[in-house]
């Protein structure tokens, strides 16, 4: 199995970057860890980025098309080739979810184009946050598939690398001199040991499995959503940091005669989300909108698509002003009858 020293990662990524953009978790000037291009700063290996690479495959704002002054419509999906490095397991599973979502019934050309041009290099987790629950969902901390390459931080200064696709294999072959070899048996033992140690680190104070089961069986008391609505400020931050949220709004504007229609991330917690032109609003009550969010992810997606719409990344709790999110939901769901 291939092994790469930490000091060789940047040269490797730079060589991959000769014909494509390379994005990795990098601290910005405000101290937020976000996916940025590798020339913007040192790569952070230790923490999960604030927003998953959803913002690269499905940007916060994206042009759908423009109408030129002569009436010609131009729609150009982004064909930029990218390497997305340092994706956590939960976020890689979120990409599996969005792959399904954006191709179901109708293919979304914009997502498809960005996705098929992206090489996914994941980083298995060895230090879950207190809000992580991928271990319950089977979406982490390590992946068996759904990556091009997966790195395992088996020692302080080096990563073992699993190959998940031909594209991943080529990405190694191009810089062969930067990699060392570890005998497979030894490598496998190191990975298993890391995995076992990691699994022991997950918080066990909330019974997510039970909450998920209750949600799938539609046995969540309406009082759960009433209580949650008392604690939630409806800021919508959870939907922005969620790696599986896909809802968008569509707007257009005109500049120097050129009309641009674009889409932007939207949020089902907002009252206007379901409001119709007639004034009719099927989810006027805030608690109903909260129910929508959790039922969509935990009840309807498992039923319709055999996937849970949550990957246990824990961001909706960490970045929540009142620290509720999926954790508080699970807590309420398993205690309020």
């Amino acid at each position: 199995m291939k092994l790469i020293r930490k000091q060789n990662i940047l040269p490797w990524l730079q060589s991959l970057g000769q014909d494509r953009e390379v994005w990795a978790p990098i601290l910005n000037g405000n101290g937020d860890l976000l996916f940025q291009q590798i020339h913007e700063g040192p790569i952070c290996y230790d923490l999960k980025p604030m927003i998953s690479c959803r913002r690269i495959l499905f940007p916060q704002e994206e042009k759908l098309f423009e109408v030129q002054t002569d009436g010609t419509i131009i729609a150009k999906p982004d064909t930029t080739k990218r390497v997305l490095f340092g994706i956590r397991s939960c976020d890689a599973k979120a990409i599996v979810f969005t792959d399904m979502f954006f191709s179901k019934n109708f293919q979304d050309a914009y997502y498809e184009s960005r996705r098929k041009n992206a090489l996914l290099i994941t980083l298995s987790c060895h230090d879950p946050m207190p809000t992580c629950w991928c271990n319950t969902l089977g979406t982490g901390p390590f992946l068996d598939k759904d990556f091009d390459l997966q790195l395992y931080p088996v020692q302080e200064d080096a990563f073992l690398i699993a190959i998940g696709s031909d594209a991943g294999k080529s990405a190694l072959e191009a810089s062969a001199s930067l990699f060392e070899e570890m005998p497979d048996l030894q490598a496998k033992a190191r990975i298993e040991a890391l995995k076992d140690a990691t699994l022991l680190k997950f918080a066990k104070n909330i019974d997510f499995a039970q909450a998920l089961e209750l949600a799938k069986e539609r046995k969540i008391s309406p009082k759960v959503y009433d209580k949650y609505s008392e604690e939630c400020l409806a800021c919508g931050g959870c939907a922005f940091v969620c790696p599986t949220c896909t809802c968008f709004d569509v707007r257009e504007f005109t500049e120097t005669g050129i009309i641009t229609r674009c889409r932007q991330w939207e949020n089902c917690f907002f009252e206007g989300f379901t409001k119709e032109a007639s004034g009719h609003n099927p989810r006027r009550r805030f608690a109903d909108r909260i129910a929508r969010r959790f039922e969509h992810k935990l009840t309807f997606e498992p039923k319709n698509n055999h996937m849970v719409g949550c990957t246990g990344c824990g961001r909706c709790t960490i970045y929540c002003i009142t620290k509720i999110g999926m954790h508080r939901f699970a807590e309420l769901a398993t205690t309020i009858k």
Partner: protein
Amino acid sequence: MQATTLETSTNIYVPQIAEMISIVQCTAMEKLFRLRFLDGHDLGHQPGQFVEISLFGVGECPISVTSSPTERGYFDLCIRKTGKVTDALHKLPVGSKVGIRGPFGRGFNPDEMKGQDILFIGGGIGLVPMRSLINYVIHPTYRPNYRNITILYGAKNPSEFLFPEEMEEWRNRKDIDFRITVDKAVPGWQGNVGVITTLIPPLQLDALHTFCVIVGPPIMYKFVLISLADKNIPEDKIIMSLERQMKCGVGKCGHCAIGEYYCCIDGPVFKYPEVKHIKEAL
């Protein structure tokens, strides 16, 4: 405006260009727009489906197709002036070009109604999507496939009835039982007065062989469903078209979700048992 687009042939978000070939003022609030694609292709819709109509520079909104698929070479949209896009559409003259995406969604299924009675119950502009099915099943080619056809149509007042000439035609046809009512009478009105549910009790219905198609404002469903239950109509023969903010039309934007469904993909036409258990549906 050109019909040709670059890299857009399979792109679900890019509209095709259609021209308004006639515009009729139906009421103070509604206009009937007849549209034809510049490249001449038929819309190819099922009754009950909808399109997304774009006025570039203003925006896009979902509108149900009101013409029957039996009418070829054009399609009709009856649009109420009620928001930014529809206000702007109402200001357009004949010959204007607009963008069209669709047809989208699950429409009515006229085939499953074959050999049965059909009871249409339309309130206000609920008649608009329903009309595509009415004019399909009463078309001379298809009328023999169906037994009794009854149309109940209610409006707030007589000035809000949408298609007076067509109503006259329906009234005169011997193979259609057409009944109307208004919520409030005005001087000179000699017809029924009362909400649409007042038209249901006098009907003689063959409960087990009648499909009921209901489209109207949200409040109407609740009361009509009670009246139909009184007539022992089986729930799986009650068909309705729901209205939601169907922004993208292709099941991606999320706004039109009704429980486990997306109105724009799984609907807008639903059978009552499909949505009965969903609190927010009706």
